[in-house]
């Protein structure tokens, strides 16, 4: 039996693989102090916003990294220290307390209940943000450096 390759179909030849930078979709919640959270549908699928496409994954990753850095330099960290993924864990509180001590900033008195920590962080921020320098605010992102806001997805570019 012939092993000849099938001819490439016309619609396939028109497709090119590109690397799409996507931003996580966020929503705002004013309850217990304003904060932002990632939104998912009923099936847990995240809502993502396409931002820009690149020819290579490397270029897309670099752009995503830049956009993440822009967010860190623009937004107060307590707005984005969302409960489920980052803030509702002991390491979050421990790392943050240590960082505040290192920076010589007044401490946060976190309660026993971990689910209250994000709210306590927001309340603390409301009182102390005015006394912190831009460099100190930037340094407070360090315990959250694993938090990213953009991702890269390979997609077909069609004519």
């Amino acid at each position, binding site marked *: 039996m012939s092993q000849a390759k099938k001819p490439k179909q016309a619609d396939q030849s028109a497709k090119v693989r590109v690397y799409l930078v996507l931003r996580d979709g966020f929503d*705002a919640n*004013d309850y217990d102090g304003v904060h932002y959270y990632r939104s998912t549908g009923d099936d847990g699928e995240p*809502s*993502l916003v396409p931002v820009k496409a690149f020819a*290579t994954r490397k270029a897309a990753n670099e752009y995503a990294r830049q956009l993440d850095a822009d967010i860190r330099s623009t937004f107060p960290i307590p707005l984005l220290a969302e409960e489920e993924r980052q803030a509702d864990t002991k390491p979050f509180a421990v790392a943050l307390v240590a960082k505040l001590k290192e920076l010589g900033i007044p401490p946060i008195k976190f309660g026993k209940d971990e689910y209250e920590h994000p709210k306590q962080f*927001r309340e603390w*921020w409301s009182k102390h943000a005015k006394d912190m320098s831009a460099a100190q605010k930037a340094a407070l992102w360090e315990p959250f450096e694993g938090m990213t806001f953009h991702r890269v997805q390979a997609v077909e*570019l069609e004519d």
Partner: protein
Amino acid sequence: MAKPATHFVVERFNWRRTGHPPTFHRLPGFTRIQSFNTADEAEAFCLAEERKARAVVNPFAGTLAPPTDQTELPEYALTDWYMDHDIDPPKPDKKTGLRDWAKWWEKNAPTWTPEQSERAWEPLHRVRFYRVTERPKVPVGYALVRVNWGYNDEWYYPGPEGGTVFTVYRNREKALKECKDHNEIATDVWDENAHEYGYEPAGANQFELNDRVLPGRSPFEPPPTPERTEPDEDGDPLDTFAAHEVPFWEVIEIELEGIG
């Protein structure tokens, strides 16, 4: 080597109207709005849009640490600045000593003259709605995105922005045609589901748009209203929509960098 041709792109920061009465929040991200050949044209467009936003947004509401979030001036300097410009700043609360900037704006802004309003915004450099960036001219593509809808046991609600990306097209018309076809199918399916399983009486609106900004719209415009205007079974006005009035698929324009 010749400098690549550039143009001036106006982008809107990711402001969103939330809640009743509405508060405006700036969330991470931005949206490409329009491009111009000259900086002057882009700046003029940007200024006009910025003014529309300023007319409806309370800059102190929905933020964690006003007025630090709004200005680089310390609070005492901001209050002095307002007094020097014939605007009475908020007074500190007798018990707490704190000033409620959001409440002050809400109460006083509607009484200001256009000149006072302009002055009131002047020191608030950290509150911006649009920006202009000069960028190389690159081709654009059109991402076909499925909106992710959820159900809250009473009605359906969309993800706040974006969704799931399926394909990116070079051709705008093709992307819009695919989007239209997908929307028509989805409308039929969801309409059927809403009638069969929906909480509202059959035929009533089942889809809430919440704070989602629809394609081509701005968060600073009045939100869309449903076509159906009769009240619901409790006599309240409907603020939910029928399936044919909401998006299930959208097209989002993006730049294609380094892609010939």
